[in-house]
């Protein structure tokens, strides 16, 4: 914290920026064989976010730094990255919440093919997402002029998993997903959960059958990395456990 000079009658104490070191894992597929670390010193305020630091580097120091971001406010889910060894959204990680006496390590999320710097190929991730049929499949159309109705209690059952923004922070924090890219991953299961437990939906059994697979929910080893990584605070491991229980209860009934 800077100490303001004692005599500053009118003006408030000036808020001074401080120098923060970022160490970013860079990879240019046209030049590099292996990713490598590169240091950047940036002047930042404690109200800045890691995304602001990346912007500063890209706009003022090195325009070749490549990363995804879109809304920059934690909704679009583009800027998930591994910050100081944890998967976080760059736009939701404040500099003041990090230990700036040490450098901040920023690297791409793991388990998905690295394309350039902090950008990974999200296609395998979205493929798993599509595979669980993440859309409403009702058996009957609602009466003309009305919609499918649902009570507050019925809605509350899956409220938590509606919050997903598909940033892949959970899936790429999962040690099972790192070693076994075939695993559906937490995000796909969260989005299956959102429809399995929706009272308006009638295809729960289809999704449970898809996830009752070698590479489905049974791959989950409850390390809780995903729950910790989720920028939306979804209790991911709990959602996966609920799907596991739904599969077991269903097969017991038959």
């Amino acid at each position, binding site marked *: 914290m800077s100490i303001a000079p004692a005599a500053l009658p009118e003006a408030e104490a000036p808020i001074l920026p401080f120098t923060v070191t970022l160490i970013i894992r860079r990879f240019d597929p046209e030049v590099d064989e*292996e990713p490598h670390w590169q240091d950047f010193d940036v002047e930042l305020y404690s109200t800045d976010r890691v995304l602001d630091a990346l912007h500063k580097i890209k706009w003022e120091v090195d325009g070749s730094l490549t990363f995804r971001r879109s809304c920059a406010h934690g909704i679009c889910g583009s800027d998930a990255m591994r910050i100081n*060894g944890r998967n976080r959204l760059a736009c939701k990680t404040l500099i003041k919440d990090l230990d700036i006496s040490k450098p901040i390590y920023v690297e791409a999320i793991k388990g998905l093919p690295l394309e350039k710097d902090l950008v990974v190929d999200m296609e395998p991730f979205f493929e798993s997402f599509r595979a669980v049929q993440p859309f409403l499949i009702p058996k009957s159309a609602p009466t003309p002029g009305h919609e499918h109705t649902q009570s507050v209690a019925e809605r509350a059952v899956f409220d938590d998993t509606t919050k997903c923004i598909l940033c892949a922070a959970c899936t790429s924090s999962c040690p099972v997903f790192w070693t076994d890219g075939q695993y559906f991953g937490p995000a796909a299961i969260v989005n299956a959960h959102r429809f399995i437990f929706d009272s308006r939906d009638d295809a729960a059994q289809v999704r449970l059958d898809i996830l009752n697979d070698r590479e489905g929910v049974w791959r989950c080893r409850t390390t809780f990395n995903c729950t910790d990584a989720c920028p939306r605070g979804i209790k991911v*491991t709990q959602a996966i456990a609920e799907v596991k229980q739904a599969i077991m209860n269903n097969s017991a009934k038959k």
Partner: protein
Amino acid sequence: MSSQPTETQAPTRRRKPRPAGTLYRGDITGLWSWVLHRITGVAIFFFLLVHILDTALVRISPAAYDAVIGTYKTPIMGLGEVALVGAIAYHAFNGLRIILVDFWQWGTTHQRLLSWIVIALWVITMAGFVPRHLISVFTGQ
């Protein structure tokens, strides 16, 4: 995990070569409890393998069995037994925690508490076992 040192250090910095990527900073009650569960599981498997083989010797020749079991009565094996009991106690308690997390709603929301209970139970078990065991290993009583 390959860790080739990279040449591309910024000119102003002088640091020791950095690892290929950062290690995921998981929680001891989550990621690392799982890693430890794996390590103790594999270790116990190899113990059981040896244990079944040496016990099977008694069918072949009781004298050979006695000779093999006799070589275990050294302080080093005594310390090894501490590690073995530690691994089994951890694997057992943590296995029960994993079952609770999978089958009990309350388990997924109170996972951190459950993990600390596992560690507490392990400490209590070891506190009861280790002093008694080491006394008998080193004094022969």
